[in-house]
């Protein structure tokens, strides 16, 4: 029943000089309080310009999402918000980005589209990461029949066509269609890839020296997994999650297009992008603005993910 296993010689492995505490002793600052991993990370983050840029961007994006009315005086949900006679008109005073095909103000829609889009992107990513990391980490770390079971369940979830799942779930929840149902569909069926990636990373790490050391020191398996393995496996998970955040926002557009997404009264970037597609040959800017808003959001999260990963990475920190 042994699945992935260690090589017998690994128990006799001697660490590089580099890796031994001896080398660091000279540099120890006796007055500093012992730092936790997170404190270390924070200290590191504070010094990074990139961190501050992405933090400002994220705060800005969240502000737009939370109080859109601060950023535009036009209410795109008003009964007379759209006027067909302005269809596809270019920018003019008070309407910086021009008008959509339906004659609505593009800028106001981009501003008001932030909340649903970002809610979908962020919450779905959180769900996907929570489920995926839990399943993948446990499968990879414990191995054996437990891995087989979890991995095969992952396979089954992989196999369910996303469109089928979406149609079944969204149609049965027809009356309650909204941001929450979209998140559920994307989240419940989106985690298998995260699980696979986490499992792969954990498999490689669980035979590392620091794990052997941690186990030897009597740390429980669960704590070892949480304290030592996961932070080291974080890189691919963070990368996947930050890219996925953007693709979930776009996926919402797909659901809308299929008739199972957000209702038309909910303004979202995804829906606006897909509606602008038909006029892209003549009026590409209508598509450009919501896509740019989406890209900036994704960019800010990718940059943040990057610096956080660097900060968490003990190897990178050593320098």
């Amino acid at each position, binding site marked *: 029943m*042994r*699945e*992935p*296993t260690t*090589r017998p010689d690994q128990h006799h492995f001697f660490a590089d000089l*580099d*890796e031994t505490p001896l080398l660091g002793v000279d540099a120890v600052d006796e007055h500093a309080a012992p730092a936790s991993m997170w404190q270390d990370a924070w200290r590191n983050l504070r010094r990074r310009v990139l961190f501050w840029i992405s933090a400002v961007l994220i705060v800005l994006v969240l502000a737009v999402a939370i109080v859109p009315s601060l950023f535009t005086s036009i209410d795109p949900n008003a009964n007379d918000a759209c006027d067909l006679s302005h269809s596809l008109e270019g920018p003019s005073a008070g309407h910086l980005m021009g008008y959509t095909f339906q004659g609505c103000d593009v800028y106001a829609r981009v501003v008001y589209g932030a909340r649903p889009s970002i809610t979908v992107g962020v919450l779905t990513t959180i769900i996907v990461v929570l489920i995926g990391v839990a399943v993948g980490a446990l499968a990879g770390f414990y191995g054996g029949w437990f891995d087989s079971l979890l*991995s*095969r369940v992952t*396979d*089954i979830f*992989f*196999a*369910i*066509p*996303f*469109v*089928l799942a979406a*149609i*079944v779930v969204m*149609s049965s929840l027809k009356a309650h269609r909204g941001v929450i149902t979209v998140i559920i569909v994307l989240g419940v069926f989106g985690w*298998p*890839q995260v699980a*696979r*990636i986490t*499992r*792969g*990373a954990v*498999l*490689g790490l669980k*035979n*590392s020296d620091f794990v052997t050391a941690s186990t030897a020191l009597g740390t429980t398996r669960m704590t070892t997994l949480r304290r030592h393995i996961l932070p080291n496996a974080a*890189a*691919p998970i963070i*990368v*996947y999650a*930050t*890219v996925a955040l*953007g*693709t979930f926002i*776009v996926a919402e*557009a*797909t659901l809308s297009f299929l008739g199972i997404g957000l209702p038309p009264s909910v303004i979202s970037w*995804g829906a606006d*992008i897909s509606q602008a*597609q038909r006029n*892209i*040959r003549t009026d590409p800017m209508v598509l450009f603005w919501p*896509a740019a808003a*989406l*890209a900036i959001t*994704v*960019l800010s999260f990718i940059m943040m993910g*990057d610096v956080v*990963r660097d900060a968490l*990475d003990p*190897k*990178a920190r*050593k*320098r």
Partner: protein
Amino acid sequence: MAWYIGRRLLQMIPVFIGATLLIYAMVFLVPGDPILALAGDKGMSDALHDQLVAQYHLDDPFLVQYLHYLQGILTLDFGTTYSGRDVGDVMRDVFPVTFQLAVMALIFEGVFGIGFGLIAGLRKGKIFDSTMLVASLVVIAIPTFVLGFVLQYVVGVKWGLLPPTVGSDVSVKTLLMPAIVLGSVSFAYVLRLTRTSVAENLSADYVRTATAKGLARGRVVRVHVLRNSLIPVITFLGADLGALMAGAIVTEGIFNINGVGGTLYHAILTSQGPTVVSITTILVIVYIFANLAVDLLYAVLDPRIRYA
């Protein structure tokens, strides 16, 4: 090793049963009355409706329908579509095309994603890295249908460099553009995953050791950095093969490809259980083999991982 592979293959049986049962149940739950829909907007009489329902066994309870289907499978009878075609024939038409398309997309995202990701990782923070970041943002923020539509118009219609659609002419040349469009989002994932892993591993002790002991940079990158960076990437690629095959609905529509995605989608919308389940069963098998191959590759890439 052989024992491990054998066990993995045996595990296909419960996965097969679990997946088909679940998917059949979901098709059963697709709302609406597919028979009524056959009449379009024009309605049909109750008697005709009942007659057709009976003809397609839609009045049987779910489990009976499922067992009926399983029984057919044992004799390689996959059932028929509403247009009277054998589902086995339909699958023989669509799978080769889609498989070719998916493999081409996988090669595209693998070669370019890993290649560019490696360079970006080695030059973290430099111009090339930033350019690639922007490139991946573009493919993330622009949905496949927009990208496909624009490429088709510019490359296919305006410049006439490649055929705008595939149709009856399935070849590497016609599938090239669809494959790039299909693989574009995954390209962004592969690029970011490779780039980050490479950047991370560059600062690993064994790399510094290798450099310190005088190994050529090319060899350090190839043997130590890339090899150790590939685990998340091949995990992604392995699982992506199946996703590319099932998820090509949009791309197939834009480029007029008679493939798995479109067939599956159409079958889902019309509640054609046998078609949906048969196609997804093949997809499950693809997933399982691809994931098995990935697990075996782990052991090659990282000697610490072994299977007994």
